[in-house]
């Protein structure tokens, strides 16, 4: 008998808002967090817009101690700690420096790359012969598992503490890995999510690949255009999202607020065969992943009310819609609602799936479908598959939203898909 797994805490550090309350308001109102960055222009980037969470020094100090912030230069870890601590507290769990390790609680907190800013700082010191001046935290800030190690120590976690990495699928994959651990009875609570750095050193490679838009440097809020006929590449983002997953049994026992249930999901890969490559998905693999997720969740494809897509605003959006349509065997007016949070946040890379899942669960809990902005001009090839009415241009308030499918796809031809359901007791 599998344990049922529910969500009892949420935290988010996103380009358009920090904290779940502000984030919920922002996504309801279609607020873009995309800005122009002079620094990128000065470095000859083609794409000079991006999404960076708005933080103050005061806010940082609420999460990390003065000692932790000394020589600290790892934004991804900062965003992850903020979202993770918020999710933990939101679940009504306490933080006590003198407690025993919490043997029943662990974390899978992912990231796509380690802290590039800190690495760069370290390389310069090493090359100048000053290795000695790296200090004691150059390793913990740059090891890939830095984020899970920081959170494990702050929260006193005694179950598995690890970091997963699967490019833009990372955040969604982390949720599924934590889900499976609770489902199989190996942990009672798992803090899951993903985080990503920002800035030229992490975004540069994508700029060089010409997969980011260069057409909206003067109109940043219009830049991220998933599903639009005028989509011209993704906008880079950053931040973190976190969910506190818990067995239904302990959540009920604690009297915790239950935001929703994780019914199931699936992860697979396309082997970089057929239409798949390092950077493009094998369409059959995507469809199989979605079908497996539906099956694993024990629902019918017809029960899905809403799709929270991967939808990055590249030429691959059309293929994604086609894959959803084929996998669910639904099209036209019979297709579920579909939207892309990336229209407001940009593509937050390793954090994307986690931030987008927080948005999905907020919608389930509060009963709304956030607008997918910047696609007034739906791509004709998408309109040929699904009714354009299924892409909300404005906020939809609803009390009938029950099931959301969330998918993420990443470099390496890898896929993940989760099925969230409203918790009805």
């Amino acid at each position, binding site marked *: 008998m599998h344990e049922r797994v529910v969500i009892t805490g949420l935290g988010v550090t996103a380009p358009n808002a920090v904290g779940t309350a502000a984030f919920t308001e922002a996504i309801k109102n279609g607020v873009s967090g995309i800005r122009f960055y002079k620094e990128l222009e000065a470095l000859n980037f083609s794409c000079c817009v991006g999404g960076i969470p708005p933080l103050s020094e005061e806010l940082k100090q609420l999460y990390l101690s003065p*000692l932790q912030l*000394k020589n600290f230069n790892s934004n991804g870890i900062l965003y992850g700690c903020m979202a993770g601590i918020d999710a933990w507290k939101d679940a009504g769990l306490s933080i006590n420096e003198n407690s025993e390790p919490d043997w029943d609680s662990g974390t899978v907190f992912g990231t796509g790359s380690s802290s590039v800013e800190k690495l760069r700082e370290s390389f310069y010191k090493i090359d100048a012969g000053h290795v000695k*001046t790296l*200090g*004691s935290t150059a390793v913990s800030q740059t090891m890939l598992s830095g984020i899970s190690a920081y959170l494990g120590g702050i929260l006193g976690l005694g179950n598995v503490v690890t970091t997963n990495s699967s490019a833009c699928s990372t955040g969604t994959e982390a949720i599924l890995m934590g889900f499976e651990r609770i489902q199989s009875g190996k942990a009672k609570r798992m803090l899951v999510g993903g985080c990503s750095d920002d800035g030229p050193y992490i975004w540069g490679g994508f700029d060089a690949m010409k997969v980011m838009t260069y057409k909206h440097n003067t109109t940043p809020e219009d830049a991220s255009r998933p599903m639009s006929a005028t989509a011209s590449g993704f906008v880079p983002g950053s931040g973190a999202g976190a969910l506190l997953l818990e067995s239904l049994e302990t959540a009920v026992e604690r009297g915790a607020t239950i935001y929703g249930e994780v019914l199931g999901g699936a992860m697979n890969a396309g082997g970089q065969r057929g239409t798949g490559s390092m950077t493009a998905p094998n369409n059959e693999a995507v469809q199989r992943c979605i079908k497996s997720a539906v099956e694993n969740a024990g629902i019918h494809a017809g029960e899905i009310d809403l799709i929270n897509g991967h939808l990055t605003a590249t030429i691959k959006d059309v293929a994604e819609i086609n894959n959803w349509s084929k996998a669910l065997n639904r099209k036209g007016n019979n297709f579920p609602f579909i939207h892309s949070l990336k229209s407001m946040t940009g593509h937050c890379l390793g954090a994307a799936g986690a931030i987008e899942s927080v948005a999905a669960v907020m919608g389930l809990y509060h009963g709304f479908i956030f607008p997918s902005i910047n696609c007034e001009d739906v791509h004709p090839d998408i309109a040929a598959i699904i009714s354009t009415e299924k892409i909300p241009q404005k906020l939809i308030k609803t009390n009938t939203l029950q099931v959301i499918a969330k998918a993420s796809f990443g470099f390496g031809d890898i896929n993940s898909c989760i099925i969230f359901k409203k918790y009805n007791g």
Partner: protein
Amino acid sequence: MTTEALMEKLKGIVKPYVKSEEGFKNMTENSDFLNDLKINSANLVDVILDIETEFDIIIDNDSMEKMLNVKAAMDIITTKLNEK
């Protein structure tokens, strides 16, 4: 530099790393960084880097190994300052 002045500077340097308020309040020449001030051993290298910056001196590996308490730190700082 007088012993008192040196002690004051050293207090300012170790303060961010100290985990025992009690030990810090009673910090004397005989205080041990790890046992009395409860400084995390990984942070000792940070304390030494901060000392180097503050006094504009270079502390070699052999001296670093000996800097486990306030007395040793003060002796090494004084020696290095005199060598300047």
